[in-house]
């Protein structure tokens, strides 16, 4: 944020007064916004105690929120592992010096990056459900769709990480008699992974957020359970809010970890992440994260 303190001078007396006035107006704006929302909610009876007390009861958490959170985390955790594997395989494929492999990996990666995750999820859900291959079609649809999309993004991360390394690394590998693949596997990709670790963690936030798409195909994750709870208790607004807060807390922790890592690792690796090849929102800058 170099621009922040350069855009304006150290304020003098007059500017300080203007800033103070602006600050008061800003604070009033925030307070007014909150007051308006509270007023609106109060007017509709949404602040009544019985809409909120279910969240103090053990059974709400035991039967709805915690099982939901558990399936969200389970799907996300499996998808993290499988998409890193997918990313490694197709990232190496895109860097291969064999043309057909490079071409095929490029086609797969570009295709899955361009298709909406939800579209894949609905397709897999209906296709798996028809084929009777697995018992829990919604769960596997979520995991596989997340893997295909995020694995492709991670493949791109690895590719751009390797291309961001100094040429000397590969040349040194070849000079001591390694093959292209050996040099990639043992020298370049490990360094690229360290350089891309912050972007990788940001991608995990995307995986966790996108797991909520399972709601649409009836996977009983956190959002789905929160809705069921809300319909039962007549406090939909409150349940959705609590579910959102749980997501925000976990994702904010992960995003902060990514920012910390990028500061910590900035001098650990020769490689530098190049932003432009990345799937944007996630990696527009080290502290910036995104959807899909």
């Amino acid at each position, binding site marked *: *944020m170099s*621009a922040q303190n*350069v*855009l*304006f001078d150290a304020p003098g007396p007059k*500017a300080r007064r203007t*800033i103070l006035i*602006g*600050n008061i107006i*800003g*604070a009033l*704006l*925030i307070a007014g916004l909150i007051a308006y929302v509270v007023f609106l909610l109060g007017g*509709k009876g949404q602040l009544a105690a019985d809409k909120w007390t279910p969240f103090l009861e053990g059974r709400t958490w035991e039967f709805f929120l915690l099982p939901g959170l558990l399936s969200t985390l389970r799907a996300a955790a499996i998808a993290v592992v499988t998409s890193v594997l997918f990313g490694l395989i197709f990232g190496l494929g895109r860097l291969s010096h064999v043309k057909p492999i490079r071409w095929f990996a490029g086609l797969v990666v570009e*295709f899955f990056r*361009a*298709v*909406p*995750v*939800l*579209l*894949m999820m*609905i*397709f897999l859900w*209906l*296709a798996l459900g*028809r084929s009777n291959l697995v018992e829990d079609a919604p769960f596997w649809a979520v995991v596989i769709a997340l893997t295909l999309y995020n694995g492709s993004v991670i493949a791109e991360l690895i590719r751009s990480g390797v291309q961001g390394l100094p040429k000397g690394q590969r040349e040194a590998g070849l000079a001591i008699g390694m093959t292209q693949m050996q040099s990639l596997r043992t020298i370049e990709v490990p360094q690229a992974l360290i350089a891309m670790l912050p972007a990788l963690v940001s991608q995990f*936030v995307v995986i*966790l*957020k*996108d*797991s*909520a*798409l399972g*709601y*649409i195909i009836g996977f009983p994750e956190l*959002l789905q359970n929160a*809705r069921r709870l*809300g319909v039962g208790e007549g406090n*939909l*607004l409150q349940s*959705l809010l609590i579910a*959102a807060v749980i*997501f925000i807390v976990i*994702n*904010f922790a992960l*995003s902060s970890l990514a920012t910390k890592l990028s500061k910590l690792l900035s001098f650990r690796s020769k490689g530098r992440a190049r*932003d*432009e090849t*990345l*799937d*944007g*929102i996630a990696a*527009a*800058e080290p502290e*910036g*994260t*995104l*959807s*899909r």
Partner: protein
Amino acid sequence: MDNFLTLFETYNVPAAFWVNIQLTFWAAVWSLVLGTLLALMRISPIPSLQWLGAAYVNIFRNTPLTIIIAFGVLGLFGQLQVSLTDDFNLNFFRLAILGLTIYHAAFVCEAIRSGVNTVPLGQAEAARAIGLSFLPAARLIILPQAFRGAIAPLGNVLIALIKNSTVAAAGSVAAEASSLMKTMIEFRGDLVIPIFFTFAIGFVILVIPVGLLTTWASRRLAVAR
């Protein structure tokens, strides 16, 4: 094959994509406005506005879009009876645009901020030296250059927005592409793979030109330094 083609006489696939394009267009316009405002707040000298901008970005960047869209229908419409128009279906459409806008404005803000970071210090110093205060400096010097530097990340947000417009399915917008695909597969389960590839290729056709165009534009419009 004949079976597959008659499917297109029963269901209007281009119309479904048109709904997604409309969702994308309106959400893109509104989130550009809101995102620019947020970016201005984040780089302004006023602490309370900086805080508000940062809080907005951190909250909505970390919330799943599905929750935001579902909240629009179940919370705003279902519980609070908020209605943006009298037309029942148009109301869901507008609530989906609202949800998409709120979510993507956070990413637009970050994209513009990364654009601001491409503007050299000397530009801001020169603006101050000729006596411009914050708003004129931002409007005349910083933002025009920042936008040109932010085209690539903004293009990425637009691509994400095109794909995310399918999440409007969670907001009862039943006319959009992913919902139509679901209906078509449920009707003709034996054609599940061709139906999926039809829709998937539709999105590839929408997304790839946007990517190429923004990459071209970001090179072409980059400020030469």
